[in-house]
């Protein structure tokens, strides 16, 4: 599985952004990406607080405000299903149901193997290919049952290869 993030890694990420207070969001996003569990645990929040000379409460203010940041561990891949109106009112397929069935979890949950977390998102700016799901930085559109099955399969296979 993923290599555990060390304090040294976290400090390197912070240094790569010149330990700049303005870059707090970029720093937190990078730490979250490298964490393997898509979150920023208190240990790393404390390091950021010390390195940037910002109060810990401020770091948490930011982590809890922004949708993309999480203080709680999540799956390796976050599947975000767009539920803004241009996607929501596309007829035909209920993509939430298909994801739930394929992953055997409910909206908001994480699979037992920690590979996927299913959640909602607001519009990701791909309404021309609605209905849409975003996984990490990838956006998948015009989703059908077959497509969803293939996508999930490709992520599962990628995970096996990494092991």
């Amino acid at each position, binding site marked *: 599985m993923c290599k555990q993030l060390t304090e040294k890694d976290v400090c390197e990420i912070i240094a790569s952004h010149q330990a700049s207070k303005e870059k707090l969001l970029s720093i937190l*996003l990078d730490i979250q990406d490298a964490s393997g569990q898509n979150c920023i645990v208190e240990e790393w929040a404390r390091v950021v607080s010390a390195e940037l000379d910002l109060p810990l409460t401020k770091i948490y203010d930011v982590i809890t405000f922004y*949708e993309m940041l999480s203080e709680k561990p999540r799956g390796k891949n976050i599947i975000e299903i767009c539920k803004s109106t241009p996607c929501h009112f596309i007829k035909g397929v209920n993509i939430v149901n298909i994801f739930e069935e394929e992953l055997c979890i409910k909206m908001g949950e994480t699979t037992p193997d920690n590979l996927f977390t299913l959640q909602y998102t607001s519009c990701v700016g791909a309404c021309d290919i609605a209905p849409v799901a975003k996984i990490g930085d990838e956006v998948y559109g015009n989703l059908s049952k077959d497509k969803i099955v293939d996508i999930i399969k490709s992520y599962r296979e990628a995970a096996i290869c990494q092991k």
Partner: protein
Amino acid sequence: MSKIKQVLSVNFGKIQPDSVEEYVKAGGYEALKKAFSMEPVAIINEVKAAKLLGRGGAAYPAGSKWEQLYEIQEFPKYIVCNADEGEPGTFKDKMLLEKDPLRVIEGMTIAGKVFNSHEGYIYIRGEYRKIQKVFQSALDNAEKAGYLGNNILGTDFSFKIHIMTGAGAYVCGENSALLNSTEGKVGRPRIKPPHLAEVGLFLMPTLVNNVESFANVPTIVLVGGDEYLSYGTPDSGGTKLVCLSGHAANRGVYEVPFGVTLRDIIFDEEIGGGVANGGKLKFYHLGGQSGPIGFPEQLDTAYCCKVMRNNGLSVGSGAVVVLDESVCIIDYLKSVTEFFIHESCGKCVPCREGNTQLQFILDKFSKGTATEADFALMKKLSTTMAKASFCGLGQAATTALDSCLKYRKAEFEAHLNKQCPAGVCFTNEEGGE
């Protein structure tokens, strides 16, 4: 005659987006060179003559905004590009960032020159992290080619652009929240006044414009304000990128001159192409979730900021979400309100509580438990939210509701009698159809 006019989108798909060489071959950076030979005031006058109205949603005249900032004698000044693009149904800034980033960079650089600013920031939403990389590469290449960075075009003018990332918060598109977020803080709006032109980024005078607004600047400098104005209407200069989605037959981004009608946008074969799968148009949502809803009888309205506003409609961000008759208005408004509940930053009561209460009432309509009194309550709530909310998010959250109450009260009334014209509510089957 074709209703399409390509000004901003000429390079889309034709050049490698981050290649300065190809951009220059396509006529890029001619405007910057011209701008270097002009007085700043002359450039501002062209922007004024062009009647360039802000493309981020509020349609504020860019020329006036530039003039106000120019008059402030305090330095450093900052140039900020709003690329948060959070309005659902909007994906046109993405096209510019992804397919012709150098046009946006050139526009920002010209602004930098006008205000003698040395630092620009572009705040790109976190959902576009992949595009941030393309944009960074365009920035690097522009710097290497001498169009950005130190001593631009061999002069003593220097200008740098930094990319800042969002992390998923619609309210950060509001310009003062955007600046807070750019400073690495929580993206809650600031109280105004003071205006951002006076107290902006790092408390210094700041220009905030939308991506598409900046992208228009090179053209305005090159062809002149009068010529640019003539592309559109006497009140709204130039062209607009419109984003068609929902049940439109041809979903996507199209560039149209101001002055075409809504009918052209939704039904023209080269643009929206009508309703998909032979459906019938029921309504359309303009400018994002915070915009008004239009109905078939308003289709002949000219797409021009002033004409639209006079008719209770709005250009806004350029979103046009087309909805067919399978959609229930109450159900639709519930989805809109859910968005605002989710995106409210929670700072003020009218927005934080107002949206939740509104959802509660809409839910009563969809369950058939609403009463006549709920109309008055919704109206009162909407007025209170519009007047007392701290920022534009809460102020505009009930715009869509207001359109529906004004033009389709009958559909609400039908729900009082447990009837849903679209057949969505009061059934046990999901989705109605």
